[in-house]
């Protein structure tokens, strides 16, 4: 579907804008070269773009607009009737206690997953920067959870978190800790979801941090070493400040990703026990594709969009105000 690569897509959009800006400023195109293939360039360009424009028009541009329109409609797909209801869908969403429950669950998941994910990813990326044997193998190992499907990951981890025979409880009891009922205990189920979330995605951030680290000129470290700075102080005063743009990028993308978690929830906990791990997209899915209440579900989708948009702006501003990033 159109959204298959959206995760990756979102990853590039800001970088894209920077690149485009830089190019526009830096590389003037000689006019003679520009017109090489003749006058009908507009038509040729249109032909080259037409397959993409067609698919995008039908499955991206129209849906973005139509979804907004839908959010003001009472629209059941199979009842075949619809009516303008103003803000009633939004009102109904806000007055549904379950919405606030899933919003809270999603927030808890995001607030726990993102920092853990980032610390782990940065730690591993920094350690891998040093002289290490088997670097390729290690990096592949950390990246493996990223490439496998969330469904398979969910099934595997269900087995690991099986209350009776799962590896997690075997490990806990082996070191003298009490076994945990990962399926019936609300907090434990959320913890399990967070563990899987971090495990599944920290490899992406590791690669992004590694790319950021490799862009820091090594003579900064050499100079610091001559001045007698130890590794921690080098990390604190060179690595972290110079890595700030990458950190912002990783933070925004991890948050966007976490807020949209669905697959693992569906397979691992089914939102249970008693809705304790039900997340926003799960709620949206139920309203759209179980109850076919397209207007209501579109309102939820636009609220999700709005939340992500505002959070992104807030973070970009926070970084900019501290002078860390020239955005």
């Amino acid at each position, binding site marked *: *579907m159109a*959204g*298959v*690569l959206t995760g*990756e*897509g979102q990853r*590039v959009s800001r970088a*894209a804008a920077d*690149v*485009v800006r830089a*190019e526009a400023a830096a590389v003037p195109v000689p006019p003679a070269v520009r017109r*090489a293939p003749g006058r009908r*360039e*507009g038509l*040729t*360009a*249109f032909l*080259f773009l037409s*397959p993409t424009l*067609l*698919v*995008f028009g039908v*499955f991206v541009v129209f*849906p973005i607009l*139509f*979804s907004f329109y839908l959010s003001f409609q009472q629209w059941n*797909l199979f009842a075949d009737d619809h009516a303008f209801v103003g803000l009633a869908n939004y009102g109904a969403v806000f007055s549904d206690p379950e919405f606030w429950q899933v919003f809270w669950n999603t927030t808890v998941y995001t607030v726990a997953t993102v920092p853990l994910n980032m610390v782990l990813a940065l730690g591993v990326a920094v*350690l891998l920067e*040093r002289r290490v044997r088997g670097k*390729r*193998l*290690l990096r*592949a*190992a950390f*990246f*493996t959870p990223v*490439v*496998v*499907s969330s*469904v398979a990951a969910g*099934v595997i981890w269900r*087995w*690991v978190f099986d209350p009776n*025979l799962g*590896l997690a409880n*075997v490990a806990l009891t082996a070191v003298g800790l009490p076994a945990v009922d990962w399926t019936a205990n609300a907090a434990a189920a959320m913890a399990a979801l967070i563990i899987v979330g971090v*495990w599944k995605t920290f490899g992406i951030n590791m*690669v992004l941090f*590694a*790319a950021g680290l490799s862009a820091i000129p090594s003579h900064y470290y050499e100079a610091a070493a001559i001045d007698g700075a130890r590794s921690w102080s080098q990390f604190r005063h060179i690595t972290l400040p110079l890595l700030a743009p990458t950190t912002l990028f990783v933070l925004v993308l991890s948050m966007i990703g976490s807020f*949209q978690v669905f697959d693992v929830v569906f*397979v691992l906990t089914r939102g249970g026990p008693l809705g304790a791990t039900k997340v926003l*997209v799960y709620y949206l*899915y139920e309203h759209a*594709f179980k109850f076919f209440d397209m207007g209501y579900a579109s309102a939820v*989708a636009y609220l*999700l*969009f709005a939340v*992500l*948009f505002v959070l992104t702006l807030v973070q970009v501003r926070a970084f900019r105000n501290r002078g860390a990033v020239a955005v």
Partner: protein
Amino acid sequence: MSAVTAHSARRAAGSAGNHLLLYTLALLTVAPFLWMVLTSFKDLQEIFSYPPTWWPERFTTDNYTDAFAAAPFGRFYFNSLFVAVVVTLGQLVTCSMAAYAFARMQFRGRDVLFYLFLGTMMVPAHVTMIPSFMILHWLGLIDSYGALILPGLASAFGTFLLRQFFLTLPKELEEAAFIDGCGRFRVLWQIILPLARPALATLAVFTFMGVFNDFLWALIVVNSQELYTVQLGLAIFRDRYSTEWGPLMAGSVAATLPILILFFVAQKHFIQGIALSGLKD
């Protein structure tokens, strides 16, 4: 002990600690996969024995035959591979054509269009999902390969990735071809695409992985079992056989194996694809 040897001893200890930490973390990361594979080759009795064994004591492939007998995983496999291959090939064509237009052609509104195009990537997939489903419903395409394939036939990410790559290629090659009378299409096909193989490979690997692993969209648009993808089949299978860990692990091995193989063959392209998107930040 002199200062120099103390320093190098500390370095050696630091390096050993570094290795120990990294390898422990790596082992913990892949442990669930090892556990999946090992469980899939154990018999029922051994899976439910406590404390658990690591290595299968009685090696068996029954879980695989059971899983494939309980659900037509062969068919699911065909569906997943078919959809993933068609979408990947489709994206290579549509994205390279669009990317070439954005990278090299001059036409009115090009930059505005390109920004709008990139802007759509900001919108969560869940916003477009509902109307896309309705469109396919109106077209009578729900529960068909068309529903799984059509929305994936273009990609803003892919277009962007290829455009960035095309911009790095020297223009002189194309100019010579234009003088020889080649049209835009032949230039793209015969000059640009052969040079862009690394970027095309990265896009192909990413798209294939995305489509093969996709779950939510297949869950929404497919009802008949004949059209289930591997991921959908596994999720349904997990509901029906919720504690039959042997067959479930066999199914999970089946659902992860193609991607794991692809990853180990083309690791560079996976990591490059991620890094490329962040590098230019």
